Structure formats: C-alpha cells, structure tokens
C-alpha cells in the first residue's frame, strides 16, 4: 500500500549531484523527514506503553532555544567546543523534561494525555522565556552542520535519524525491554503481577521520547540557524502520532513496530513534499494530508476491508467483531 504512494509520483525520482552532495526531492524527503522520524521513534515506545506524549513539539522548541541561547552567549560561535556543550545542555534539558512527564504518569498516576498536555502548553512559554521572546539567530558553522550539513553526499540529519532508529531497535529487541514494554502496554495489571517494574520503564520511555524530540529540535533549529520558540516543531506531535499509527502500532499499546514507524514517517514526509512540489495552496495542504492519512488508515483497518469484500452493510463490521471476540 505504502509503496504504491511513492510510485504515483514519478517526477520525484530525479536525483542530481550538486555542490558536492546529492540533491533532489528524494533527498529533501530524507533531510526534512529526519526530525519527524526521530520524534516518531521516541513516540512509538511511549504509545506502546499505552501512553502518549503531546509535548514533543514544545520540547523541540525548547531544545533549539537552549542550544541557540548558549551559542549566542559564547565568545566564539565557530568554536566546536561551544557547540558541543550547547548540544549537551539542550539534550540534558530535554531528557529532564521527559523525566518530568514520566514521573507524572508513573508516580502520580496522571493520564498520559493530560500529563503531557501540561508541558505541551507550558513548553512554548518556556521556550519564549529562554529566547526572551526574540528569535535568536546564529552564525555558527559547526552548529549548522547538524541540520544542514552533508556527510558522504547525504544529509547529516539522515545519519542522526538512522542512529536513533538503530539504537531504539537494539535496546528494545536485544534486551528484554521490548518485551516488557509490549507487556505493560498490552495488559498493565498482568504485567505488574508478573513482576515487571513499570515504575522504571515508563519514565525511561518518556525520557527517551523527549530526548528524541531534543535531537529533532537541534536539527530543526540548526537548519535555519535560529531558534523560534513559537513555530519550531509546531504540530510535529500530530505527524509523529500519525507516523506511529500508520506504521502499525496500536494507540491502545502493546505490540510496536519501529520499522513501521519509519515507513510512516517517510510516507508523511513524502506527502508533505509532494503537496509542496505540486504547488497546492497552503490552505488546502492540511486537508489533503488528512485525507490521504484517512485513506491509509481505512485500508489498514480489518473491519473496513471486510466491508469492502462483503459489500457495504452498516453495522455488519461491528457485529462481526462482537462475534469473534466472544467466540
């Protein structure tokens, strides 16, 4: 299903070599899709625990703001040491925010949607505080490399996304963490009685998600060499959640698929880039996007597929589900 979408847009397959690196629409997708992919990977694990993180957009903004503030205050903006310490500070802050979310959910028992909503709302304000309400612009080559740099003719941000993805896959599949996440997401009560320590796993997962948002924030702000507390990462949480869902992970938690999420993120980015390339007016962009996502979700829904096969009879799908569940 997903491959079909790519095939329908043949004009994309032109890749040029210019300025010492590859260029073209496909490369744009990889480049601009990297932050989304990274956030979506973090979001996958949170959703797998039957949670959700609405605050990633704000963390993106905060992370970029923190890094840019640190660099702008430094003596020499070209200093690699300064950039590295700015990056470290931003990521540390992101992880701390993730811990905040995780503790609200695990220790205080607040519903994830509410808990992360707090930071989602407050976060933009925090980002503004950090930048003192201005858009901080930088002139730093080392910092610019994160989002706009090239390595071996491909965007550096793509390597970052690959690294995050591989890290997540290794940690969840090579250790027993993946099994635990799927267990507590699928049946929290049973997981607890089986001796799984959700009190550690849940905060860890939210920390990782915010850390991913932090990395994405660095890429995004580095790309434009500035920090915009209001617009950085706007609505990225929705795209990330969509990527996870399209990728096959259920919002109810349990089994998750990181590679599915990656495909979902690429799909959404392809969509965004296509719409842009076709010159569709921005007002229509979101509507078209929503429509395509709706189509993909319908195709994935077993109930919908059954309705197509047996002819449209409202109520059939629902009653059929009832029968199979009690059987």
């Amino acid at each position, binding site marked *: 299903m997903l491959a079909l979408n790519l095939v329908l847009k043949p004009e994309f397959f032109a890749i040029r070599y210019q300025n010492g690196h590859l260029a073209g629409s496909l490369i744009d997708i990889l480049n601009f899709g990297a932050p989304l992919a990274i956030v979506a990977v973090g979001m996958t694990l949170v959703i797998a625990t039957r949670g959700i993180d609405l605050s990633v957009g704000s963390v993106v903004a905060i992370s970029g703001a923190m890094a840019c503030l640190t660099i702008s205050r430094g003596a020499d903006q070209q200093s690699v040491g300064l950039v590295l310490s700015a990056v470290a500070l931003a990521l540390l802050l992101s992880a701390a925010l993730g811990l905040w979310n995780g503790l609200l959910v695990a220790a205080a028992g607040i519903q994830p949607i509410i808990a992360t909503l707090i930071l989602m709302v407050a976060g933009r304000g925090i980002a503004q505080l950090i930048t003192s309400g201005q858009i901080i612009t930088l002139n730093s080559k080392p910092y610019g490399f994160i989002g706009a740099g090239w390595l071996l003719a491909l965007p550096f941000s793509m390597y970052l996304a690959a690294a995050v993805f591989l890290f997540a896959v290794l940690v969840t599949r090579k250790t027993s963490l993946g*099994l635990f996440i799927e267990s507590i997401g699928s049946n929290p009560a049973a997981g607890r009685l089986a001796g799984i*320590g959700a009190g550690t796993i849940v905060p860890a997962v939210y920390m990782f998600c915010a850390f991913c948002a932090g990395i994405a924030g660095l890429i995004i702000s580095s790309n434009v060499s500035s920090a915009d507390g209001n617009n950085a990462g706007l609505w990225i949480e929705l795209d990330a959640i969509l990527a996870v869902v399209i990728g096959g992970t259920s919002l109810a938690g349990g089994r998750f698929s990181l590679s599915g999420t990656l495909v979902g993120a690429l799909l959404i980015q392809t969509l965004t880039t296509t719409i842009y390339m076709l010159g569709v007016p921005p007002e229509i962009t979101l509507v078209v996007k929503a429509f395509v996502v709706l189509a993909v979700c319908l195709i994935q829904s077993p109930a919908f597929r059954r309705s197509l096969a047996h002819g449209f009879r409202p109520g059939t799908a629902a009653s059929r589900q009832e029968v199979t569940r009690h059987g």
Partner: protein
Amino acid sequence: MSPWLQAAKLGRRGGIEPFDLAIGKGEIVGLAGLLGSGRTETARLLFGADRADEGRLFIEGRETRLDSPRKAIRRGIAFCPENRKTEGIIEELTVRENNILALQARRGWFRALSRKRQEEIAGEYIRALGIRPPDPDQLVRNLSGGNQQKVLLARWLLTEPKLLILDEPTRGIDVGAKAEIQKLVHSLSEKGMGVLFISSELEEVIRVSNRVSVLRDRRHVQTLADDDIRQTAIMQAIAGG
C-alpha cells in the same frame, strides 16, 4: 518445624480482617468460603499485590514487608490470579512470551534469554503440561481456557517458587484439564513446594488440601486440619453455625 511463611495479624482495611496463616514447605493450604469472603484479598496480600495496613509477615523466619509483586517474586512466591484473562495471561503475546515473562522480569532488562533458550524452555513446559496446540509462537488469545491456565501455570513454575498461590485454577476448565492440574498440585507439594489453593468447589478444596482455612465476611473464622476436613464441618463454618 517453623513454617516457610507465617502471617501474623496481617490485614487490609476494607479487604480482609487481620488473620494468622502459616504455610509450611510442601504443605497445601486451602482457602474455602463464599464469593466475596476475602480469599482473593488474602492471596493478594501474601503476594504483595496489595499492601497490608497492619500485621507482620515472616518468610523463613525473617520479617518481610511485601510492597510489590516484584519483591514477593524475589522471595520465591508465585501467584496465578483468579481473572486469568485480565490479570494473568497477556493475550496479544505468544505462548513462549507468556511463559518466560515472570522469569525474564526477575532477570531484568539486560540478562535477556536468547530466542533459542526461550523456545527450549517453552517447549519443555508445553510438553510437561500438555499445552495444546503445542506451538510456542501461537498467540495465547487463541487457546482454550484450560490451555491458557496451563500457560499461566508454566510461567510461574518456571520461576521455581517456594510458595505457589493458586486462585481458582480450575474455574471454567474442562474436566480432563482440571484433574491434570490437581495432580500437578500434589506432585509439586511432594517436591517441597508450598501451595495456597483457593477454590469455590468445596470438594476440590477438601481433596487437595492438607489444611483448610475457612473464610466468612472477610475474616478467617476457622482452620481445619487433616481428618477434620469434612464437607459438613466446612459448610458449618461458612454458614457461621
């Protein structure tokens, strides 16, 4: 001979009145009583699934506070809950994953059992307990109630517990599987495992247990041992006569 587990005036407000209970190595203690009499509450306290408000608990003579199932598991206690679907098995996962879950949880994040080892272990118990269909990668939701109970049992047997708490292990299960499970309980106790056996079927409790504690209205009212364990005696205790 001091018992392996000794509960002294252990209680939880709104759940179960303070009770004394002792379970020795290789002993099968049964809990009899009507629905809502506090049997499951007793079990959950002994497993750390609920926290006790009062009283003390001793394991192998040492006082312990069981704050969580994790702690109880570490001390060698296992628990098959009454609601196997909602609190026991994880339907979405495979037989193999359900089997090794408690053992893996005890081992932690990093000492992951290899896929091969998992299949070995799961295969062992599938054969030993006669789980059908014998496919370790089958989703547990597709198994019958009896087989799901066996998968749950296998999970806990894998942890080699000193005390196994079974809450309604034969409810909703066909006669053949029921007998298998009762036989299993006997062989486990012969090997030295203590068992706390909860069942609504008086006959079953009588047949299986060495000692029976009778509950009424969230209180342990009487304990009967050996020859005193008779249907009439238990029913009288339940009725309060």
